[in-house]
């Protein structure tokens, strides 16, 4: 069942000069983790602020748990937990004071909903008398998530919770989200600029310039990739990139970790490309066919939307 429905949603800033959202349509199923994936400026924060009833749409409608974000904004606020991208708790209150403050705003208490935050808050509880401003980044993140959860919302809206966070802490954060979903059935809508986090979500929307490039499951997105994609490596990677781009068979060539991911014309053959590169003096050339990642898909869709 849909818990969030967004229809024909538009929002612009500066008297229409900046189109932040250009007519978005999508739905989120109850109990799923829905990922909005895209770079800065894609419109992720604008969308979340509208869902969180903090910003009015120009056109279109958004309903959360059957309620309209404009008409029923007060009722919606009880049902959502919103964690903004920037740390926005009270730096000069202690960990415990922050949490009980957010609980009391919603006429509840830490004790009443302790079960819900236990997994996350438990990790920072030993420091509950410390001022929030004195916490490390990882601890601030856990406190912010606890505060967003303490009134037992049905939907969690998390704006780039993992940005600037190292890979290990990011992995732990996603594990926390999955447990929340599993144990408490909370719907989670989360944005991220990291393409490699797409696989953690049930559905994802790839977003760029206020529009969705594609909406699907992560495997559906990867499955719809139609280009021929090869990984290419050789000894001199800097020169290899120039030579790949100059090759008439090659459509695009981009760095992906230790290899270049290369898309080629349909009639291209791997042995021919390897021979071509060897002919240019490249040594230890390796060309292998590969499965696209979500990031390959995103880049391919970006190019297509530029062209069309």
């Amino acid at each position, binding site marked *: 069942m849909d818990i969030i429905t967004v229809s024909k949603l538009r929002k612009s800033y500066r008297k229409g000069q900046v189109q932040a959202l250009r007519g978005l349509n999508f739905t989120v199923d109850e109990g799923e983790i829905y990922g909005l994936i*895209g*770079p*800065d*400026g894609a419109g992720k924060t604008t969308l979340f602020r509208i869902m969180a009833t903090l910003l009015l749409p120009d056109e279109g409608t958004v309903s959360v748990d059957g309620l309209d974000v404009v008409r029923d904004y007060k009722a919606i606020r009880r049902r959502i937990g919103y964690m903004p991208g920037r740390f926005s708790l009270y730096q000069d209150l202690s960990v415990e004071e922050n949490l009980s403050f957010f609980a009391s705003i919603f006429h509840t208490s830490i004790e009443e909903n302790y079960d819900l935050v236990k997994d996350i808050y438990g990790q920072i509880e030993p420091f509950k008398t410390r001022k929030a401003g004195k916490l*490390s*980044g*990882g*601890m601030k993140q856990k406190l912010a998530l606890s505060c967003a959860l303490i009134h037992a919302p049905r939907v969690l809206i998390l704006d780039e919770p993992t*940005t*600037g*966070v*190292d*890979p*290990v*802490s*990011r*992995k732990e954060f996603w594990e926390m989200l999955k447990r929340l979903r599993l144990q408490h059935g909370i719907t989670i809508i989360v944005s991220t*600029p*990291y*393409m490699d986090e797409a696989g953690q979500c049930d559905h994802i929307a790839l977003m*760029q310039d206020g529009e969705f490039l594609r909406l699907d499951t992560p495997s559906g997105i990867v499955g719809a990739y139609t280009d021929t994609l090869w990984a290419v490596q050789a000894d001199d990677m*800097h020169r290899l*990139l120039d030579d790949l781009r100059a090759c008439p068979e090659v459509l695009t060539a*981009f*760095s*992906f*970790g*230790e290899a270049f991911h290369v898309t080629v014309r349909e009639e291209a053959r791997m042995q021919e490309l390897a021979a071509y590169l060897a002919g240019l003096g490249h040594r230890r050339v390796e060309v292998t066919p590969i499965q696209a990642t979500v*990031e390959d898909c*995103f*880049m391919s869709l*970006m*190019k297509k939307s530029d062209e069309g």
Partner: protein
Amino acid sequence: MKDKYVIEAEGLTKQFGAFTATDHISFRVHEGEIFGFLGANGAGKTTAMRMLCGLSRPSAGWATVAGYDVCRQAEDVKKHIGYMSQKFALYDDLTVFENLRLFGGIYGMSAKTIREKAERLLGELGLAAERDALVASLPLGWKQKLAFSLSIFHDPKIVFLDEPTGGVDPITRRQFWELIYRASDRGITVFVTTHYMDEAEYCDRVSIMVDGKIEALDTPANLKRDFGVATMYDVFLALARRAKRTSD
């Protein structure tokens, strides 16, 4: 040719009270190298970088950067390095050219040199048409390229990049790395921190800090071989899991 060092650090340490943020790190960075400086949040990277940039005095140990001692010649260090952070040091309400003129002026470049270099640079970046546009009006990816170009505008020996690619789209992120390659090919040493593990693969050598210490330092290929794993992500995971400090 690779025996010239742009950074030499020996036992470099910073203590805040009882807390040792950077704990006796020793390493060298070759001229023209792309050196990746990795570590979990709170591992001590920022503190180490501030010392190397002459912004924070070491509690113990020493380091030279671009040939200058970070303790005794901190001002010389600052003149001979470039620095770019994720929060670009661009003035939004100045034009592209005004930003270049301001930074050039700060580093003591003549008006003529600034003008000539600015024209060439804007041509290379494909920003010639935006010369007199306010920086605020540029897309994020262009700002990022401009911020990087500004950080090497005064031809420093080395440039420090602190998470330079956060938030940009995947194509812009890769184009940015191509700028880094070009700078490195021109002999500028690049010292870069990142949380993108694919970017660790683009570095000539990578160090990984855990709890204030450098726990690994080698080429990406050697690190992966030594740890018996396929990606730098797995190397990072294996090392960061040993951390005792709570993450920051």
